[in-house]
């Protein structure tokens, strides 16, 4: 079968199943059953699908997801989130859309704590979204920033994906990690500008209430009492990594426990809060893991059928100028990213891309950053962006995927713009590693 038939058949089938309202996870299962039967030679294909599925979620790399969700849920259910927001409200005064900015700030902070975009998005979604909805923020001003900053986790170190990319592309892991820092911060800055523009265009998108005037003393008090103790949580997550006591994955467990300790300190800890937080973690991670179970296998099948490599080979088969080729590679990454998991994409594309990058004279570390950005983008692109499903899972009932995708769109634009900027000014990525590594 020609690769484009296989590609069209599998993508078409999954789109139809999903459009019919079949749960996303089951839609993947249905197409996997049919696809395995077709491409892997009948019943043995279905058995192989189940064998493959046993490995897809029994993975330590997924552990941060429930742990970060527990953390976010605890913030919300113990009321710590409200207290922090109220305190910051007092200090930020009448800045319109302040919670949207706070999402970017908080999300960027947590991106430096976590190496997993899905975990970061789930955490931000569970702790911030309910509170912002209550305060009258329009859905796109809540979901857009959360989706966007959630994805920063794999650009800003530590990043699981950057480490794997470094080893597969045979480039220096340390340099690649550092190279992501400046572009990550620029991206966060672009998000702030974007939010400011969105508010200017549609002031009604965010509530306009002005909190009562408070004295400077009260402000300091609010910061010290409500916000400063948050340092404990941040210490537990990032401090333990820096001190060399825990790996990024392990430190997430300490983070969750530290929120419990903090809530107890404020007298806000209750069994109900703990149970509700665990319930939330079960809902979000159970839903996500079931999709991962189906989509990982779908991704493997797409690779086995030859559809993915066909697309890559076709797109890179033309003799064109380096910049057009670069564009083709980024497009391939984004298209594959819609349907496949990121590690598989790297394994498929890097053997073809890296030699091309070499002959075209691009810097491999610079390309690594571009690739991370394109892969991050693919997490939020419809119809299969995993972060969209995460967002949908943590949003109030009635939220539609169209709303979520529309909220993500302008932020996707920022990432694309950053890729263009990086192409014009490669120094944005290469300056810092050059400085540090000498």
């Amino acid at each position, binding site marked *: 079968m020609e690769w484009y038939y296989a590609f069209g058949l599998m993508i078409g089938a999954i789109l139809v199943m999903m*459009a*019919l*309202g*079949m*749960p*996303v*996870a*089951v839609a993947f*299962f*249905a197409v996997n*059953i049919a696809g395995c039967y077709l491409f892997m030679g009948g*019943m043995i294909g*279905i*058995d192989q699908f*189940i064998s493959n*599925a*046993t490995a897809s*979620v*029994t*993975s*330590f790399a*997924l*552990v941060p997801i*429930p742990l970060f969700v*527990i953390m976010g849920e605890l913030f919300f259910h113990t009321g710590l989130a409200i207290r922090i927001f109220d305190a910051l409200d007092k200090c930020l005064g009448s800045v319109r859309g302040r919670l949207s900015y706070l999402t970017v700030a908080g999300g960027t902070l947590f991106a430096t704590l976590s190496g997993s975009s899905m975990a970061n998005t789930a955490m931000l979604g*569970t702790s911030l979204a309910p509170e912002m909805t209550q305060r009258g923020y329009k859905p796109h001003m809540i979901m857009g920033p959360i989706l966007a900053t959630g994805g920063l986790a794999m650009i800003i170190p530590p990043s699981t994906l950057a480490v794997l990319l470094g080893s597969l592309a045979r480039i220096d892991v340390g340099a690649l990690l550092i190279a992501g820092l400046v572009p990550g911060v620029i991206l966060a800055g672009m998000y702030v500008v974007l939010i400011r523009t969105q508010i200017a265009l549609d002031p009604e998108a965010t509530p306009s209430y002005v909190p009562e005037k408070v004295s400077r003393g009260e402000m300091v008090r609010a910061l010290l009492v409500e916000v400063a103790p948050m340092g404990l949580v941040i210490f537990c997550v990032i401090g*333990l990594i820096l001190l060399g*006591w*825990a790996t990024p994955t*392990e430190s997430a*467990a*300490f983070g969750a*426990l530290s929120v419990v300790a903090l809530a107890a300190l404020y007298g806000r800890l209750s069994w109900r809060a*703990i*149970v509700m937080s*665990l319930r*939330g*973690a*079960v*809902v*979000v*991670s*159970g*839903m996500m*893991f*079931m*999709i991962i*179970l189906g989509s990982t296998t779908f991704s493997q099948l797409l690779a086995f059928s030859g559809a993915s490599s066909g697309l890559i080979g076709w797109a890179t088969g033309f003799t064109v100028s380096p910049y057009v080729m670069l564009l083709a590679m980024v497009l391939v990454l984004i298209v594959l990213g819609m349907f496949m998991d990121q590690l598989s994409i790297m394994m498929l594309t890097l053997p073809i891309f890296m030699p091309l990058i070499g002959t075209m004279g691009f810097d491999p570390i610079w390309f690594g950053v571009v690739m991370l950005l394109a892969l991050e983008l693919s997490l939020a692109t419809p*119809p299969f962006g995993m972060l969209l*499903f995460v967002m*949908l*899972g*943590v*949003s*109030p*009932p*009635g*939220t*539609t*995927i169209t709303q979520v995708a529309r909220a993500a769109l302008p932020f996707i634009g920022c990432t694309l713009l950053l890729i263009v900027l990086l192409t014009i000014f490669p120094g944005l990525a290469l300056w810092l590693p050059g400085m540090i590594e000498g």
Partner: protein
Amino acid sequence: MKALQIYDRFTLALAAAAGLSLALSTLAIVVDVTLRNTGFRPFQFTSAVVEYVMLFVTVAAAPWLARIGAHVAINALVDRLPGGLQSLLGRAVIVLCVVVLEVLAWRAGALTIQEWGFGSVDIRSIAIPGWLAYALLCAGFGLMGLEFLVKLLRGETRAGGDGAH
């Protein structure tokens, strides 16, 4: 409908077990890291068990998530159909879910027996019986499919929600 009540409770109990296992995993990691950093020997089983807990959570929560409509689905297009067609299509989708999941449960069950026969072992930080992952998948797919069947009998016409957090 005593049987249905017991079944509902069983599904809820499984979800509760998933929540409890997440809580215990969190504590296990904390204990493990603390032991390692205070000069004691950490338990070897932690990472392997926590990895399997991820699969356990997936399958144990699945039927309950199906009940509360928390398996994300995209209903935007179906919602535009006229009512009669919508519920007909909804039922057809639920039937398809049952078929897909029970086929998977059947194969996962067959493979569980096969792996048991091989006596295979999944070697991680500790050795875990090779049939366990297959058995978990069999139970998870089977119960999730059963829940969709119950949904159908209850007269529901929607397989998944748009987020039920």
